[in-house]
């Protein structure tokens, strides 16, 4: 029998050599005359073990990692003989880092072939849509609302309410838009799911369309994600061939189709109204709200615009019921969150778990601290617009409200770890600089404030009138926070103010030691 070997085609795995490993495996198998089948999967999300490859055995899949091209020969021998190997990790499903997760959204990611509709269906795919088709719009809305799902892009708006608003709107056309402009540094969950389980996103969007009465959807993917673009396009083509997109979906009376649109390197287009402008072919200028996109969205029509992870959560909720999802979590944060551990971290990757896990558990226990081996000094949670938290706040549970209560945000679930080499003045300056580079320019606090912010922080770094300039930065941050149109200008103060608050020592020059006069 042909040996089946699974090699990820996830961009992060490719970036550390997965393609070379696949090629080496093929060559080696040909040389040895042993027939093998290489299945290119997504990533399981244990990024420090990438490339992590697996072999199918009668007892389940056995993993090896990190496998470099130079390890391929010996790993292959171990696969053939089922013998020991230093890189052998044992049964993939039993790896503790995976086993302690609650994978609802990422259940299939890294397991199935993301190009195969059959594989998706064989692993429970399209069960949610099948149930949705039998339920009808109102019952679907009840399920989504009861699940407690909140927008996973960062704002945390209840998905059920958003969908209901669009469902009730009267219009000749409505749209479903997937925000896949995942620009936050430290986040890659959207990318992983699009590359590893793209049909899940399609199923979630199709369900949204069915619910609100939309027949066309767009997935707006950032241009920095060429592999995700390719994966989504391939999956859309396969779904069309399989009767899951186009006319009469799954034999129903209902039609829905999807199109991928590619961004062009503007961070602000992750803001939903800017994204809609960009989709319409214009500069990504933020729109003032109201009107909400639910009433007046793409091309002026009622539009559901959700993050990739929000759509990706839908099939589970419909297949297993709202209760099964809402049973996880804490407070008003229901269900699971795919958390991304990044930066200077020993065990970085995708960790999906119920809300409520503490920041300290995530960084120290699950993440294993820094890869440099130095103490963790700061973590930035929620991307470039998220606050920097010191160790003193590591008891904060991962929950929308708990982070907000401490002047932070969970955003899209990215955690970037810094060791004690970090200079928080530099990070505060960068936050302003990034805002200045990426500001759409529509509102003054963001456009001008960010540039003035860079200048003033530079003065502080140069030791010019430090206390006055610190007060000025704080004042400027308040203006940006309350006066900006969108989260770019409005949230840039989070990293800046948190750096000032929690790492004050970095901003105040050490008092000059006076030599005692003899």
């Amino acid at each position, binding site marked *: 029998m042909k040996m089946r070997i699974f090699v990820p085609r996830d961009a*992060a795995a490719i970036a550390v050599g997965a393609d070379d490993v696949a090629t080496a495996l093929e060559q080696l198998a040909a040389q040895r005359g042993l027939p093998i089948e290489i299945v290119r999967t997504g990533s399981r999300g244990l990024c420090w073990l990438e490339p992590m490859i697996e072999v199918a055995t009668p007892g389940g899949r056995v993993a090896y990692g990190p496998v470099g091209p130079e390890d391929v020969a010996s790993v292959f021998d171990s696969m053939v003989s089922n013998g020991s190997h230093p890189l052998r990790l044992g049964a993939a499903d039993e790896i503790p880092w995976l086993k302690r997760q609650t994978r609802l959204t990422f259940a299939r990611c890294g397991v199935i072939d993301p190009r195969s509709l059959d594989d998706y269906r064989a692993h429970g795919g399209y069960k949610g849509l099948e149930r949705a088709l039998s339920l009808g719009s109102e019952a679907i809305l009840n399920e989504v609302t009861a699940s407690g799902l909140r927008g996973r892009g960062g704002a945390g708006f209840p998905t059920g309410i958003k969908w209901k608003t669009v469902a009730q709107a009267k219009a000749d056309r409505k749209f479903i838009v997937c925000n896949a402009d995942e620009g936050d540094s430290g986040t890659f969950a959207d990318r992983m799911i699009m590359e590893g389980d793209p049909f899940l996103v399609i199923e979630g969007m199709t369900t949204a369309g069915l619910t609100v009465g939309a027949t066309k959807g767009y997935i707006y993917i950032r241009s920095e994600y060429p592999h995700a673009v390719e994966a989504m396009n391939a999956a859309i083509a396969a779904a069309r061939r399989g009767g899951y997109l186009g006319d009469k979906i799954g034999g129903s009376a209902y039609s829905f189709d999807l199109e991928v649109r590619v961004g062009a390197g503007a961070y602000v287009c992750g803001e939903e109204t800017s994204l809609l402008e960009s989709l319409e072919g214009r500069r990504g200028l933020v729109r003032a709200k109201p009107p909400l996109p639910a009433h007046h969205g793409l091309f002026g029509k009622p539009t559901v615009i959700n993050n990739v992870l929000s759509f990706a959560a839908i099939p589970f909720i419909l297949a297993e019921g709202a209760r099964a999802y809402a049973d996880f979590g804490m407070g008003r944060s229901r269900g699971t969150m795919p958390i991304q551990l*990044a930066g200077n971290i020993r065990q970085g990757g995708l960790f999906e778990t119920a809300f409520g896990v503490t920041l300290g558990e995530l960084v120290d226990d699950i993440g294993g601290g820094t890869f440099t081996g130095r103490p963790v000094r700061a973590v930035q949670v929620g991307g470039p617009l998220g606050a920097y938290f010191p160790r003193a706040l590591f008891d904060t549970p991962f929950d929308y409200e708990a982070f907000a209560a401490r002047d932070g945000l969970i955003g899209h679930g990215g955690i970037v770890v810094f060791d004690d080499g970090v200079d928080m003045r530099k990070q505060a300056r960068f936050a302003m600089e990034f805002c200045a580079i990426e500001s759409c320019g529509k509102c003054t606090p963001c456009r001008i404030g960010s540039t003035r912010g860079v200048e003033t922080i530079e003065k502080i770094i140069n030791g010019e009138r430090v206390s006055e300039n610190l007060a000025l930065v704080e004042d400027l941050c308040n203006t940006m926070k309350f006066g900006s149109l969108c989260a770019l200008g409005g949230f840039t103060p989070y990293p800046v103010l948190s750096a000032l608050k929690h790492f004050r020592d970095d901003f105040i020059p050490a008092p000059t030691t006076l030599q005692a006069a003899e």
Partner: protein
Amino acid sequence: MTAVYEPWDETRGADIIAEHSKQEGATLVILHALQEAFGYVAEAAIPMVAQALNLSRAEVHGVFTFYHDFRHKPAGRHVLKLCRAEACQAAGGDALAARAEAKLGVSLGGTTADNRVTLEPIYCLGLCATAPSAMLDGRLIGRLDEKRIDALVAEAQR
């Protein structure tokens, strides 16, 4: 792997524009397609896009200049993008970017005098758990260290 682009040609440009102009909100789609073919968006293409989409030249120019991706002239033979966002900063990306700048003798955003390499910052490739990261002519590279960045720079200079 150097991308091979066609020299700007008005007829070919018009064909590309016509191919996409029926889509709703086609401006970005067309600009992407033009850049994919020619490596940049020629000044002469802007009024052509405007006419095809019934927009003003200013509107198309405005879109073209808003987005970081679009080039008004060809890049160097190789494009090396270094991720400069927080996760890569946390993993030592600052020093590696400075090293690449020094080796190439250009700042981020610049092209070497021999036109071989364009060095650019990129804000997040989504490889934040295998940082620092780079992209050379569309190929992704993670877990950069001094040795790897030197090899990338050398490869780009060839």
